[in-house]
């Protein structure tokens, strides 16, 4: 939630692209989708706080002022109060309308069809992910395919994140419209990467499409988000976003 600026360098920011202990807010966004989601959340949160204060104020006023020790007067025959009923109907309606505007705006923005520049196919297995890059094939007619397993705790090197780091990351270029085609190989999984605003079910027999545009370099972590068996919590996702040049070099090395 907070950017930490090291004291010795004002230009280096450390972004929160993985879950932090006791974290309250979202991870730092790296795509327009996630930035939109964070902004929508913040604007709804404003109304949430106002309503919370209002309700707590009324509740505490009633408890403090009208408890049995304080006041014996009770309006037994109060059947209606037109003005207050108007207020507490119209005000929530207005609040809902105020929330609906940015919500629908984001929803339709996320739904915009943008022709992608590359496609990455993702298949969820029990209990790992496999990736295919088939936009280009090498001389043998094969596309780039690899599996991505979590690094077991016993094999973690210094600096690696427990339950998040994988042996083979998904390498993609920044500033490129990427289409992910997600499916499941056995049971339903879910491909989720919070920093990129990605969450899409991986269903066997179905190809779910989602798009992302990554705005900065970095490694973005996510975890399977649909219960899929004993190791559901141990099949993470790591997307490494690099410059287009490094991406092409990586493609060359894989082919």
């Amino acid at each position, binding site marked *: 939630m907070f950017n930490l600026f090291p004291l010795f360098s004002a230009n280096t920011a450390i972004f929160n692209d993985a879950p932090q202990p006791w974290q309250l807010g979202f991870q730092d966004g790296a795509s327009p989708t996630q930035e939109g989601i964070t902004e929508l959340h913040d604007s709804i949160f404003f109304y949430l706080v106002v309503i919370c204060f209002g309700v707590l104020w009324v509740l505490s006023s009633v408890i403090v002022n009208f408890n049995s020790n304080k006041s014996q007067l009770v309006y037994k025959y109060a059947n209606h109060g037109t003005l207050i009923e108007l207020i507490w109907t119209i005000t929530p309606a207005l609040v809902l309308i105020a929330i609906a505007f940015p919500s629908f705006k984001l929803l339709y923005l996320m739904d915009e069809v943008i022709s992608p520049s590359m*496609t990455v196919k993702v298949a969820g297995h029990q209990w790992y992910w496999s990736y295919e890059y088939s936009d280009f094939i090498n001389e043998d007619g094969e596309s780039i395919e690899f599996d991505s397993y979590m690094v077991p705790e016993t094999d973690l090197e210094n600096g690696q994140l427990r339950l998040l780091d994988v042996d083979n990351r998904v390498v993609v270029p920044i500033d490129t419209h990427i289409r992910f085609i997600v*499916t499941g190989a056995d049971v339903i999984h879910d491909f989720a990467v919070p920093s990129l605003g990605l969450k899409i079910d991986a269903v066997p027999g179905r190809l*779910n499409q989602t798009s992302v545009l990554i705005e900065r370099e970095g490694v973005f972590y996510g975890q399977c988000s649909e219960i899929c068996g004993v190791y559901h919590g141990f099949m993470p996702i790591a997307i490494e976003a690099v410059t287009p040049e490094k991406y*092409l070099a990586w493609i060359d090395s894989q082919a």
Partner: protein
Amino acid sequence: MADVELKTAPADFRFPTTNQTRHCFTRYVEFHKCVNAKGEESDDCMKFAKYYRSLCPGEWVEKWNEQRENGTFPGPL
């Protein structure tokens, strides 16, 4: 490196929603219809080949190829 252009199967207005299963299947069928009509080596068909390869998981393509060889492929070839 700067003149390398990344291309993939374009967004198809016939399949505007999240579920792209039919999109992959249609491209596969279109390729094989094209091959049946124009022959294996035709360049026009390579476009469809690239599209279905980009969209369809390798396992699905292998399964469909087997089905075509067996004569059990459930598509309008």
